[in-house]
């Protein structure tokens, strides 16, 4: 009895936290010396020997229209007034709203047969961002947490998951690490970050800074260093005598935070280092500059960055929710989206980063093929489009097709879980890998029933 009890508890429910703790301990946070944090910085030893793959997620808050972007319907009344244009890939047409992207089609695979289960903003956001339905007590992690957890490097100078101007109010859980815990939570920049009280007056440039990175105004740098050394020294005793996940995680978070505060890697957030012409090409707005920041982060080894396009004018929240005046709204939105995304692909390519960076475009659902009485399109999860571009996929092709009226998927419907599993494969992660969940049983990265689209992988 007693032996069984012991064995069960060692390999059973606590194994994950134990493993995590060992990892954190091995990373040198559990018992470092007097001025450990600062010495570590001086040594500056972490180097990325073999580049891992990265993901940039372009999130279209509110649910982007498929017909006025990638799934044109020129021969049907549902197609609306916007015209198709030809692209750099013969035979492929997309909407005139995306002229710059149309020249880069060889890097792009629109998946036109998305068919998902949630037409409500909150539930749809959760569904697409976690690959699971919001149900029961399991706190599913957002895909950024899942993938950065797999692709990330322990002890990196920059966080493994950065989220730029997320609009989280629909469903904050869809933006969080869920059962993976705060260690896998994103570093959020951008004023859409607050759920409760966004700072609406901040300019886009201020808002792309990391909050609380500098010591308070009346604290000098040398005083801050003294404080940090004293804290690390004082804390080491408690860390030794009180082992456990909360203690190890506290130490690990502080050491990562200090590393960021004092590392030149944080220069990644300083967009002034870039040529003005390039900044113009991305677009001088929050989304455009967010995409530029994403490139700078990926360049420095950050495995997952998401940039949210929440709107262009006025309130930045769920601009793609175009229930009325869809066509005008889409023109405005794509005037920001098109240059930013196209420049991002081009910029990554010029720097040799495109092969190893997957750029994903999606929202929580698509929009009705039928145009409503207010020239708008409503929520539609039955047949819509997401896009994979860049590394890991074979661009220059469509996957899936909808009927001429756009109302049904013709063949190969793709679920949220299928999409997540495909993204996993494109960056070399096994979607059937498991994590221990908050309900004490292991959960796979993607739903076990997911069927990844192997045909479009590079």
């Amino acid at each position, binding site marked *: 009895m007693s032996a069984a009890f012991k064995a069960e*508890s060692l390999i059973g429910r606590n194994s994950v936290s134990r493993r995590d703790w060992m990892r954190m301990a091995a990373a040198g946070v559990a018992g470092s010396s007097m001025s450990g944090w600062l010495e570590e910085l001086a040594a500056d030893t972490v180097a990325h020997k073999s580049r891992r793959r990265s993901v940039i997620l372009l999130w279209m808050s509110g649910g982007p229209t498929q017909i006025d972007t990638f799934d044109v319907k020129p021969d049907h009344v549902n197609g609306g007034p916007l015209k198709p244009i030809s692209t750099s890939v013969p035979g492929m047409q997309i909407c005139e709203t995306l002229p710059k992207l149309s020249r880069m089609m060889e890097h792009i695979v629109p998946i036109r047969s998305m068919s998902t289960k949630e037409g409500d903003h*909150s539930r749809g956001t959760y569904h697409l961002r976690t690959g699971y339905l919001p149900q*029961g007590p399991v706190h599913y992690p957002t895909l950024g947490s899942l993938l950065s957890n797999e692709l990330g490097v322990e002890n990196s100078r920059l966080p493994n998951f950065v989220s730029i101007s997320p609009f989280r109010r629909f469903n904050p859980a869809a933006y969080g690490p869920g059962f993976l815990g*705060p260690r896998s939570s994103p*570093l959020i920049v951008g004023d859409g970050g607050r759920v409760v009280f966004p700072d609406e007056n901040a300019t886009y440039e201020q808002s792309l800074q990391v909050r609380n990175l500098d010591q308070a105004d009346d604290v000098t740098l040398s005083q801050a260093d003294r404080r940090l050394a004293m804290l690390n020294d004082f804390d080491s005793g408690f860390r030794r005598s009180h082992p456990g996940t909360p*203690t190890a*995680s506290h130490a690990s978070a502080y050491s990562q935070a200090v590393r960021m505060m004092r590392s030149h890697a944080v220069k990644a957030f300083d967009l002034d280092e870039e040529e003005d012409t390039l900044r113009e090409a991305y677009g001088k707005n929050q989304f455009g500059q967010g995409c530029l920041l994403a490139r700078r982060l990926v360049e420095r080894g950050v495995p997952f960055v998401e940039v949210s396009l929440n709107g262009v004018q006025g309130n930045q929240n769920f601009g793609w929710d175009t229930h009325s005046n869809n066509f005008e709204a889409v023109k405005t939105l794509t005037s920001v989206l098109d240059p930013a995304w196209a420049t991002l692909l081009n910029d990554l390519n010029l720097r040799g980063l495109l092969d190893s960076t997957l750029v994903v475009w999606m929202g929580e659902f698509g929009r009705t093929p039928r145009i409503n009485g207010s020239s708008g399109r409503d929520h539609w999860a039955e047949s819509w489009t997401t896009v994979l571009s860049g590394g890991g996929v074979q661009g220059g092709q469509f996957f899936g097709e909808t009927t001429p009226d756009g109302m049904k998927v013709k063949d190969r419907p793709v679920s949220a879980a299928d999409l997540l599993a495909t993204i996993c494969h494109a960056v070399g992660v096994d979607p059937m890998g498991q994590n221990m969940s908050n309900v004490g*049983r292991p959960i796979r990265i993607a739903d076990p029933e997911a069927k990844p689209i192997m045909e479009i992988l590079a």
Partner: protein
Amino acid sequence: MTGAYRFSCCFIAVIGLCLTAEPSAAEQPLTPDDVQKLANRIDDLIAEKWKENDVVSTSPSDDAEFLRRVWLDVAGKIPTAADSQDFFDDQSSDKRRRVVDELLNGPNYVVNSANFWRAVLIPEADTDFNVQFMLPGFESWLRQRLDEDKAYDDLVREILTMPVSGTNAFRNRNTLNPIAFYESKEIKPENLAAATSRMFLGIRIECAQCHDHPFDTWKQNDFWGYAAFFAAMQREPQRGSNGFLSQLKELFSQRTLTVPGTDEVVKATYLTGESPEIPAGTSARMTLADWMTSKDNPYFARTAANRVWGHFFGIGIVHPVDDFSELNPPSHPKLLDVLASELVKHDFDMKFLVRAITASRTYQLTSSVRSADDVTDPRLFSRMSVKGLTAEQLYASIGQAVGTHETFEESQRGRFQGGTTRARFIEEFSDSNSEPTERQTSVLQALSMMNGRLINDATGLQSSRTLAGILDYPGFDNSRRIETLFLATLNRRPRPDELERFVAYVDSSTAEEPPGKRQPGEKQRFEKRDKALSDVFWTLLNSSEFSLNH
């Protein structure tokens, strides 16, 4: 098929066991010190397992460790420096018991346990903006009931039987009632079934919603039969509104439910497989509540007792605390039986359990070990586990340490969370992982504690009340000042080596410049000393010892 049959047998066997193992409530007269008796019983049953596993427990906690822990667990924040000082000075032998009694009678207990039960009952509010909006009436209702010392079974009964017709949680979000419980589950039978069985019975039947349970013995029909108790509620249709502002109603004639995607119609059925007669003209939820909260329902009392245990130890006897199943047996079955039957015997008085648990030697063990090698299986309870604080506990504790005082009305009651320092802090520090021994700190949280405004104001020379107090206090030297900062934050006195190092740090800041350089004047010397003390205060507030419950 055979699985379901096996489970039913097992369920009945468990009830039988429970009823025969412990004599029933009414027969035993209560003695004045039931608390100590139960505390001893806990210790005996826990120690039995240590023996079996050849494990030695850690030593008892000292007064400082005990006081900080019990304040955090019962009152939801750390004690003040004065509370600690008074407790150390008290020489009476029953002071640990007395401090628990005092805390249980105070307002902090009400706030803390309301936060606790809110997190259990409406976890959706942590992540859903709409649900957050409905909370004021619910939280005020919960605090009022806890303040009235309402027994646990009555509290659950009130939630289960609340008349819903004519209510709307969005419009009447300041009305004191538990309607937000229903709205947060979207008044859907399947959500309410999953939530109530998990929360009140520790049974996770929700997997059976879509398919027969893969690990356990629940069938899809068990789930929908149970869900049928909640099938009669709906939203009054309203023109020109997308629905959520319209009122709820309950059709007492609606007694069955059609399993979605099938033609199968099921009757309201308990998880034991029995279908009760529901009196005409009443809510089926009344009938369900009778069964659910019955003293003979072994799952109800056990789940409650296990949850309270889990709160105080960070780990349940059944763990996770709401996952009772054949595949997840309790670490100490006998102890769970005892706690549950004592809870029943004391008419579901949760405070009684709190008194007994905190009086046990097991609860009072130190969390400190020599090294990580000395850590035994936490489910043996041979050492107090280190627990992370909730966002609410951390915020309130910072308030205690720095001497800010937020009134109850301002921070809690009826106010929509928006824009206040507290609301921002709670948002930044909330962790949807509710396991106290698994809580983590994020990089943004660390940055906020180190460089953010809250801590900077708290330790700033211009703005900190605690700091101002100790700097000006007549007759204090640097060691007394540092000692006071320790008491205010860590609720203990510094150890000699710690004191020596911090005093040396502060003294060196005012040391004379080398000969030849200009010597600082008295005013500058004071400024430097004050700055150095603010560094000490900052260090203590950022330490893991401050941020954790141990």
